[in-house]
C-alpha cells in the first residue's frame, strides 16, 4: 500500500561556487538560497491489488515522486507511507559489478535490495530461470549483453514477492518478448495483492496496466482519475516545440506568412484527438508577401517518442504561382495509421527555385493530436492486422 498525503519536496539550488566557500559567504552575507519545489501538494493512495500510472513531461516531478516512494529522499512537507516490502524496478541491477559472475551479482544485487542470503538462495533457480541466462550464470557480467544484464536485474527485483512495485522506463530496454514477460509478471504481482506505481512515457503501457492515472505538471497534480481522461489531460499540456529545423534547409524570411493551420476530421471540424484509421485533413492558409513562383507544403508527423515518423512534401508537383498579397488555402489529406499515443503534426510552406533548390518560407505552429488505437496494439505503425483460421 502506498499513501502520499500533502507531499511536497523542495530542493535548494546551489550555485557553481564550491560549497565550502559558499557556506562561508552565506554565513557572512546571510544571502537566501534559490529554492525550487519539485513536487507540491500531492495526495495519492494506491491500494493493494491496484496499479496507478503517473504521467507527465520531463521535469514534471515524476522522478522526485519515485525517489520519495523509494525512500531515497524525504519530503519537505507532508508524509509518505509505504507498507510492506518494496521492489523498486527503478533500481534494476543496482550495484552490479562487471568483474563478478552473474551468480555473485545476484547475491550482491539481492542484498542491496534488502533480501537476506537465505531468501536469495531459495529464489536463485527461479531468478536464473526468469532471466533466461542459465548457461552464463558463472560468466562475469561484463561479458553479458545489455539486454542480459537488464533481464538478470529485473529477475532479481521481481522474485522477492514484493508488496509494492515501483516501475519506471526500465522496460524500454530489453527485447520485446522479455518486455511482454515483464509486464505479465508485474500484473501477476499486482493480482497477488501488491500496489503498483507505473511511471512511464509509454502511454500504451499505462493504458494496458493502469485503470487510473495521475498527471503531474510542474510539480503539481493536474489530474487524478480514469486513464483515458488522464491521457487527454496530458495531451492538452503537451508543450509542442515551435520549430524543428529540418536538416539544414535554408529559410527565406519575409516572403510569406501562415495565417491559419488546423487539423480537421472527415466532416471538416477541427480535432485534437482521433482514432486509428481516421481520415484527417491538415488545412493551411498562406498569404504571399511577395510573388512566389512554385510554392509547396510539407507535412511532418512526430511520434510519441519525439522522432519523425512521417514526412512528405509536394516539391515535385508544386502549387500554382502566388502573386504578392494573394492568400490561398492548401489542404493535405492523410490517414492516422498509428497506434495509441500523442503525435505532433507539423506543416511548413516552402518554395522551389531553379533546379530543385528549396527554401522554407514559414513554419506553422505545430498541432498536437492524440490518437486512440485499438486495444492490444503496440508499436509505431498500425498495419491493421486481421486474424483468421480454417
Amino acid at each position: 500500500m502506498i499513501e502520499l498525503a500533502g507531499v511536497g519536496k523542495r530542493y535548494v539550488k546551489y550555485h557553481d561556487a564550491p560549497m565550502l566557500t559558499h557556506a562561508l559567504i552565506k554565513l557572512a552575507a546571510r544571502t537566501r538560497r534559490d529554492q525550487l519545489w519539485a513536487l507540491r501538494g500531492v495526495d495519492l493512495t494506491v491500494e493493494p491489488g491496484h496499479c496507478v500510472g503517473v504521467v507527465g513531461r520531463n521535469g514534471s516531478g515524476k522522478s522526485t515522486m519515485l525517489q520519495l516512494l523509494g525512500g531515497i529522499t524525504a519530503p519537505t512537507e507532508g508524509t509518505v507511507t509505504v507498507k510492506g516490502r518494496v521492489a523498486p524496478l527503478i533500481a534494476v541491477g543496482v550495484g552490479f559489478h562487471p568483474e563478478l559472475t552473474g551468480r555473485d551479482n545476484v547475491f550482491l544485487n539481492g542484498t542491496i535490495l534488502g533480501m537476506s542470503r537465505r531468501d536469495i538462495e531459495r529464489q536463485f533457480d527461479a531468478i536464473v530461470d526468469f532471466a533466461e541466462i542459465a548457461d552464463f550464470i558463472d560468466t562475469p557480467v561484463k561479458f553479458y549483453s545489455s539486454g542480459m544484464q537488464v533481464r538478470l536485474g529485473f529477475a532479481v527485483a521481481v522474485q522477492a514477492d514484493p508488496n509494492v512495485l515501483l516501475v519506471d522506463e526500465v522496460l524500454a530496454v530489453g527485447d520485446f518478448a522479455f518486455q511482454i514477460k515483464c509486464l505479465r509478471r508485474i500484473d501477476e504481482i499486482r493480482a497477488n495483492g501488491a500496489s503498483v506505481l507505473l511511471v512511464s512515457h509509454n502511454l500504451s503501457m499505462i493504458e494496458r496496466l493502469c485503470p487510473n492515472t495521475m498527471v503531474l505538471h510542474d510539480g503539481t497534480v493536474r489530474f487524478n482519475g480514469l486513464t483515458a481522461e488522464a491521457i487527454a489531460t496530458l495531451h492538452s499540456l503537451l508543450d509542442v516545440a515551435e520549430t524543428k529545423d529540418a536538416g539544414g534547409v535554408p529559410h527565406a524570411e519575409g516572403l510569406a506568412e501562415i495565417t491559419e493551420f488546423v487539423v480537421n476530421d472527415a466532416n471538416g471540424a477541427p480535432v485534437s484527438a482521433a482514432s486509428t484509421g481516421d481520415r484527417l485533413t491538415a488545412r493551411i492558409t498562406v498569404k504571399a508577401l511577395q510573388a512566389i513562383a512554385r510554392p509547396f507544403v510539407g507535412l511532418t508527423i512526430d511520434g510519441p517518442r519525439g522522432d519523425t515518423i512521417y514526412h512528405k512534401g509536394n516539391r515535385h508537383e508544386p502549387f500554382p504561382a502566388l502573386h504578392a498579397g494573394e492568400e490561398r488555402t492548401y489542404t493535405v489529406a492523410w490517414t492516422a495509421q498509428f497506434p495509441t499515443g500523442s503525435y505532433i503534426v507539423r506543416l511548413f510552406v516552402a518554395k522551389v527555385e531553379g533546379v530543385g533548390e528549396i527554401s522554407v518560407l514559414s513554419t506553422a505552429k505545430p498541432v498536437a493530436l492524440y490518437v486512440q488505437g485499438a486495444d492490444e496494439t503496440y508499436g509505431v505503425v498500425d498495419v491493421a492486422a486481421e486474424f483468421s483460421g480454417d
Partner: protein
Amino acid sequence: MDGEVLRLSNTPTSSRQLARLVWASRELISTLARKEFFVRYRRATFGVLWAAGLPLVQATVLAIVFSHVVRIHTANSYPVFVFTGMSVWTYFTTTTTAGSTAIVDNTSLTNKIYFPRAILPLVQVRANLYGLAINVVIVIALALGFGQSLDAHLLILLPATALLVLLCSGLVLTLAALHVYFRDVRYIVQAVFTGLLYLTPVFVPLGRYPVALRRVVLANPATGIAQLFHLAIDGTAFEWPKAVAITAAWTVVLCFVAVRIHCSRDRVFADLL
C-alpha cells in the same frame, strides 16, 4: 522487511531507528566489504595472495632501511616495531581516505535505492579488516622470526582492534557526511594524513619524540591504537594508558557527532549527490 512500514516526513530519524536500520543491514555491509576486498585482486594471477605479498615486501624494505640506515633503539627488534606500527597506520589511513568519500563515490547506489547511508563508510571499516588481519599475522610471524618471545600481551590486540574499528567508524561517518556538503574534505584528509604519519609512533617510539612534540603526537587519535599494538607485540609501550585515554575521548566525540549528523541527514544526502 515484510510487514514493515516506511513513514517519511520532514523529521530527523531517531538514533534508535537509525541503529536498527544499520543493524538490519549488517549482511549488506559484509557482502559489500567482501566484494570491495576480493574485486581488488580479481584479475591478478596470484589473486588475494597479493594482500599478504605487498605488506611482506613492505616489511622487508622497512626492516632493511631502518636497521641499517637509521639506528633507533627499541625494546625489541626495530623492524618488528616498525611493521607493527605500519599495520595500524595502513588500516587507519586506507579506511579513512576511502571511507570519507564513500557516500559521494557510491552515487550509483545512493541515487537508486535507500539503505542507511552510514553503511557505505562502514563498508570500508569492515573491508580493510581483511588486510589488517593479514598484516597482524605477518607481524606475529616476523616477531617470532626475529626471536622475540610473545606472551599473553598478544590478547591486547582484540580490544585494540575494537577501539580502532570504533575510532575509524566515528571518523569516517563524520567525514563522509561532511564530504557530501563540502567536497574539499577529500583533499583536506589527504593533506592531513600525509603529515600525520610522522606524528604517529610508527617509525619513532613515542618516548623518543622531543617532549614538546610528544604532546602533539599524544593528541593524535591514532597514537593510542599504535601504542596498544606495540604493547601487544613488544610487551611494553611508552605512556600507553594516557594515549589510549585520549584516543577513547576522540572516539566518543566522533561517534557522537557521527550519530547526530546521520540522524538528521540520512534521508536527504541523496539530494546533493
